């Protein structure tokens, strides 16, 4: 063997050994969630963490602590399943977690009191609503940096994107208009008034002097042709045509609708009306109220599964059930007494509902078909909401 061959062999060996040593020296972070669709994410307000529950085993497989006084509000998986994000309401920051290792990879300052959030359909932009800052923080998910703050909103609660990602719509709970954002420039383009606001003299003085109950969300229909926005004070739902960004119809529902929820089959939408403890079911074809049904107090969410709607009455301990074929009540599920129900997500098979129950620090899993349930305890302190990747019922309150 020539000297040069020996030298090359020695170098190769050294490179292999060196490479092996480097691999040993830099151990890969432990993968805790291999499949992002296999877990329920639970946002825990008071333990300031996000816990991850395996859907099959119902065991908590990991937790990500965010820091003291963070008070995370809503959690969401990025569309590519790479990151989990949440806004820390008391910390005025957004938190980005690696979805596989559950490590906190980035903390990004936002505006004041971040709550609800949304991703653009391509996953590039993370819009974080800041209700007390009256703004939206735009976070670039490629560089994981905040690139802009969009001002001029009024207590923005929820953001939705058109399917093509060109525009975003902001529900302003502190106003009676929907904000239209040009996603290309991240600028507020237009304010769409949902309906005529009555004069001061016509308003109930108690209501007028209290906090505004405006628009929570402008929810798009499945085909993206229209957006529906319920206004709490006005007791109406405005139907917006996004081609011209105009209200094409106003539908009267019950008093103080909290927001609107779209059924998965695209046929109906439901508003829980906290003013008179009813729900209004809107037929999306005729754009008319098809049924008004009794419900419970302080409704915080609606989930659809097994051909039914499940309406969460947060302070009564009941989940009200409705048959979405007959549009009639189908009973109610008593979850507990003197408890506080928060919000829920539905699995992608539309079979099970994962409901956060804050007072006992648990998640209630409801079988939509049988309407039986089981509780998983110790998920974290004061669970506030749940999220499953690709679920059609990912919302917060």
């Amino acid at each position, binding site marked *: 063997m020539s000297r040069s061959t020996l030298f090359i062999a020695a170098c190769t060996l050294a490179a292999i050994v060196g490479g092996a040593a480097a691999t040993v020296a830099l151990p890969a972070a432990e993968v805790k969630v291999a499949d992002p669709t296999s877990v329920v994410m639970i946002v825990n307000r008071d333990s*300031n963490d996000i816990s991850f529950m395996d859907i099959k085993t119902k065991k908590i497989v990991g937790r990500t602590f965010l820091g003291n006084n963070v008070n995370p509000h809503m959690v969401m998986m990025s569309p590519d399943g790479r990151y989990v994000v949440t806004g820390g309401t008391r910390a005025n920051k957004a938190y980005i977690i690696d979805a596989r290792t559950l490590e906190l990879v980035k903390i990004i300052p936002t505006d004041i009191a971040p709550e609800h959030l949304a991703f653009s359909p391509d996953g590039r932009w993370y819009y974080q609503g800041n209700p007390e800052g009256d703004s939206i923080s735009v976070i670039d998910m490629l560089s994981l940096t905040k690139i802009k703050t969009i001002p001029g909103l009024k207590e923005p609660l929820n953001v939705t994107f058109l399917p093509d990602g060109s525009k975003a719509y902001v529900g302003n709970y502190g106003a009676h208009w929907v904000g239209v954002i040009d996603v290309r420039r991240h600028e507020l383009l237009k304010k769409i008034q949902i309906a005529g606001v009555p004069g001061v003299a016509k308003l109930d003085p108690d209501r007028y002097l209290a906090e505004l109950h405006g628009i929570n969300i402008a929810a798009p229909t499945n085909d993206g042709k229209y957006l529906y926005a319920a206004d709490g004070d006005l007791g109406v739902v405005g139907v917006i045509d996004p081609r011209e960004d105009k209200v094409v119809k106003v539908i009267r529902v019950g008093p103080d609708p909290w927001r609107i929820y779209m059924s998965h089959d695209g046929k109906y939408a439901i508003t829980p009306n906290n003013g008179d403890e009813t729900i209004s079911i809107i037929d999306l074809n005729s754009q008319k109220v098809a049924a*008004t049904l009794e419900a419970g107090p*302080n409704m915080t969410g609606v989930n659809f599964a097994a051909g039914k709607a499940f309406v969460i009455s947060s302070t009564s301990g009941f989940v009200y059930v409705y048959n979405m074929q007959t549009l009639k009540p189908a009973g109610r599920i008593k979850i507990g007494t003197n408890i506080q129900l928060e919000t829920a997500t539905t699995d992608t098979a539309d079979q099970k509902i994962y409901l956060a129950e804050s007072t006992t620090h648990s998640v209630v899993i409801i079988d939509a078909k049988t309407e039986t349930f089981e509780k998983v305890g110790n998920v974290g302190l004061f669970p506030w909401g749940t999220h499953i990747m690709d679920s059609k019922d990912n919302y917060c309150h």
Partner: protein
Amino acid sequence: MDKSCIVNSKSETLDWTSNSRSRISNLQCRIRPILNSGVILLILIASSGYFRVSAQDVRSHTRPAPSTAVDEKQALDLTLTLSQASVRPVQSWVRTAGKIDKAGKILTGYVYPPDANLIKTGQRVRAFPLESKSSMYQARVTRFVPQGSRVMVDVTLASLGREGSSNYIMEIVVDRGEFLSVPNEAIIEEGDKRVVYLQHHPGMYVPQEVHTGVQGELYTQVLHGLNEGDQIVTFGSFFIDSEYKLKSGAQPAAGNDHQHHH
């Protein structure tokens, strides 16, 4: 018992074909057990907080904890002062009396529990002669001898003591370590709870319960409740506390009840 009122994990099958009927049915379900169980149960339920929870609307439940606003003029009048929660040395100052030796160099005194076990050689000491308390003498602990529960301490002055003074007050500086801590004046004690006012954003302050560890002479260790860099109110916290209680009805702020334990 009315079957429509049975409470179990299975859905109740109420007949809700009529809105008014179902409302009456609901009302009956809620009232009947209360009536059956008498006035005591009614009182118990009323005091359980159920009605308090029901009275709020959804957004007031989901909205962040109320905070107290302080405008610039108020802040100026109050000399409102902020400080950072940060990792810094926390010191205890152990005070005792000492008598100087004939050479005027070594002070001897005794330290009693619970401070006795804090004493070590090399610790810095400030010594003040009783006759002239404004005169401070630098010194160090050079020897300590446990005597039962107490400790006899010898402290050597850096220079000769004051002429004619034999008795001194000794202030032994005990370094307790570097901890996340806040100035003592930032902490408001409320029963067995300790609260600080945290700046949420400029001009707005929210109460935050903290769990404390070592209480030093100037700073108190914070075990949990705060992060490094948090801005907290030192001077003016009592004003903000009273404002907060007046405006909020002293309801605990969201997220104050529990914190992550490390």
